[in-house]
């Protein structure tokens, strides 16, 4: 019987070689499918209606959502820098970039909530209302969940209660954050620009 000695291999790896990274990718696929189906369903419903947005619904405002999107886009590079700092075990770099990531996420979310208040329809109004609020609700739910996860990681690093597993956590946290940023772009286009592009009243 022959042997293959792996004792010299590193006992962890903070990269896409880690199973956890693939788990996060699967999470992104699951949620990506969910949003893709909802976008397809939104367009299907739009095709079946003559008037869009349906009577009584305003055309969406564009200023606040666009500012919110810009804040969200700015947050992504900080997530990347934090994950690179995690690979180097650079505590100060992780703290700085996670804080900035969260600050821009908070700005994005504040703008989003301000924008909600200006919508003149709720989820009960009609099909468009149901879909728009489904997008807003589901993405916000994911957004808050991941922001809390990021905050917990930040706290663990601040109090020094961290090791390779938590640094790997910072790395895979960035994967899901890129996803949340990336998936918001088509949703933003569909729900805010959509009625302007393919609406008719």
């Amino acid at each position, binding site marked *: *019987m*022959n*042997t*293959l*000695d*792996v*004792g*010299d*291999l*590193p*006992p*962890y*790896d903070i990269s896409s*070689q*880690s*199973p*956890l990274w*693939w*788990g996060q990718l*699967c*999470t992104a*696929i*699951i*949620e990506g*499918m*969910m949003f893709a*189906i*909802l976008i397809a*369903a939104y367009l*299907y*419903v739009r095709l*079946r*209606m003559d008037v869009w947005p*349906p009577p009584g619904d305003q055309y969406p405002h564009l200023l606040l959502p666009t500012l919110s999107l810009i804040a969200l886009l700015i947050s992504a590079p900080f997530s990347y820098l934090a994950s690179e700092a995690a690979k180097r075990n650079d505590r100060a770099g992780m703290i700085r970039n996670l804080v900035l990531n969260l600050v821009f996420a908070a700005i994005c979310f504040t703008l989003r909530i301000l924008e909600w208040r200006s919508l003149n329809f709720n*989820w*009960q*109004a*009609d*099909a*468009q*209302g*149901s*879909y728009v*609020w*489904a997008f807003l609700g589901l993405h916000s*739910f994911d957004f808050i*969940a991941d922001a*809390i*996860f990021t905050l*917990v990681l930040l706290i*663990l690093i601040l109090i020094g*209660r*961290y*090791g*390779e*597993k*938590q640094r790997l*956590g910072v790395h895979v946290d960035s994967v899901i954050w890129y996803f949340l940023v990336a998936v918001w772009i088509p949703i933003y286009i569909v729900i805010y620009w959509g009625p302007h592009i393919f609406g008719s009243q």
Partner: protein
Amino acid sequence: MNRMDKALTQPDVETGGVAALRHSWRHPGGIIGWFSYDTHQAIGMRYIVTAFIFLLVGGIEALLMRFQLAHPNSGFLSPDRYNEIFSTHGTTMMFLFAVPMMEGMGIYLVPLMLGTRNVAFPRLNAFGYWMYLGGCIFLYWGVFSNSAPDAGWFSYVPLAGPQFDFGKRVDSWCQMITFTEVSAMCVGAELIATIFKMRAPGMSLNRIPLFCWSMLVQSFMVISAMPAVMIASSYILVDRTSGTNFVNPAEGGDPLLYQHVFWFFGHPEVYIMFIPALGFVSAIVVAHSRRQIFGYPAMVLSMVATGFIAFGLWVHHMFATGLPQIAQAYFTAASLMIAITSGVQIFCWIATLWTGRIRMSTAMHFVFGFIAIFVLGGLTGVMLASVPLDLQVHDTFFVVAHFHYVIIGGSVFPLFGAFYHWFPKMTGRMMNEPLGKINFWVLFIGFNLTFFPMHILGLKGMTRRIYTYSPEMGWGTLNLLATWGACVIALGGVLFLVNFFWSRKAGKVAGNNPWDADSLEWAASSPPENYNFEHLPVATSRYPLWTPQEDFTVVTGLRNDRREVLVTTLMDAKPHHRYVLPGPSIWPLLAAIGVSVGFAGSVFNNWYIVWGSILTGLALIGWFWPRRPVEMLP
């Protein structure tokens, strides 16, 4: 340099031998310990046992329906109760038996076949099981409080919508979906990560056992298709509870869209149940014809192709809804195409069997039964793919016969074969072979007696889901025959249980590899230890146990004093790094309870989603919080 870095620079030597390995992989004691298990054998077995119980429950529901339909104008069940029972039967068999059973077999077998110690995310695995159990309890809590779903297993709107279905009946269906789909997606994600990253060194993509390929394809289908059904069931639920208009045509919603979204999941669902069964068949055929599989690349490619094509077929469930002709033509062609990929596999198995030295074991009997029944189901499938015929027999017993031939023939027969094949591995004892063969023939005859007459009933115009019929219709004899057949199937089920319990107690001791099979699970002891292998094996060929023993290679250098496994590269399975899996924990159960509070409560009041989310969030933080310094170290 802090303590952590110092630990890293110390050489990692294999520590403590098998005693240390046993200690670090032991199950925790006590009741809380029992709820904390996270080894793949324990979780897989929990899935298998629970799903088997629901197979029996769904079977009893089927018998009740058959008793009702045995004679014209029967008053055995009220129309309302009949609606509840056929809906619960379909729902149970799909969501509480078939998918979780396949997941359970995958969880149990995949790490063993890959030559590793556990799945990639053991705690997620435990969480997934608790979510599944939550779904079971939730649905049957509805059943026993007069709130069983009554709009069929696919709950078409507007029948299932707020205008026509009162009370909580359909709500219990909707949230049961969410429970079980969360569970299935957990398993899908963890199996993908396990199969991609935790294979034995040397097990490159072209050496993965076909069963693991089938679970990989199935897992990708799960994570791509299940979000659709969660959306579909949520459409109904929020329309019912929160006054949204997703499927309300009065406010621009679309009932037909519900069907599209549902079947975008529903058709792949068939293959989610069926593809692991192809893996069972391949494993059994190879082991029991004692020959390498014929056409391994063709087998793998057709499984992958089936996975893709399955997403382009869903509209053939909706031919009767009035579609544009181009869509009908497209989906007919796509539906016919699935016969190519299935046919390739059937021919590969036949070629393997033809040139092999077949051992006519019970498992092999079930494989032959599978081929016969599945081909018949496939033939009616090709018939149904053509629109004119489909319109003629739409919603009749012909369709009922077709999908029972495909699902029972395609999934349940291979599953029973798999039970007979892997029972020695799971329990350490052989099942009784003569009784097993009787078991097979009783099931085979019972099955055909039950479902073959339904083809004819369908052609004679008997629609599905009717609770009774009048004597003038002339359906009485065939229905009575089908009911007798159902009783024979039930007898087959009893025979299996007798064999199971008798063999567990008194079966012949199996040893590690009673079938002289090829794949790595047979290198572990029967039943496997929690750590599976004392030394992780190296895959030197596609059939590691059939290569000469002097070439057999094992991995050394992993630490035994903690749950360490080896991560390998995606394509070639070269050793890349070592990886420490988490130990048992009660947090997955607490997190599942938090999610359950949200899901179950949301049927009654939307605020439960908030409370459930808070509870879940707290449980997840507890789950991830590093408890001891040792958890922070590599």
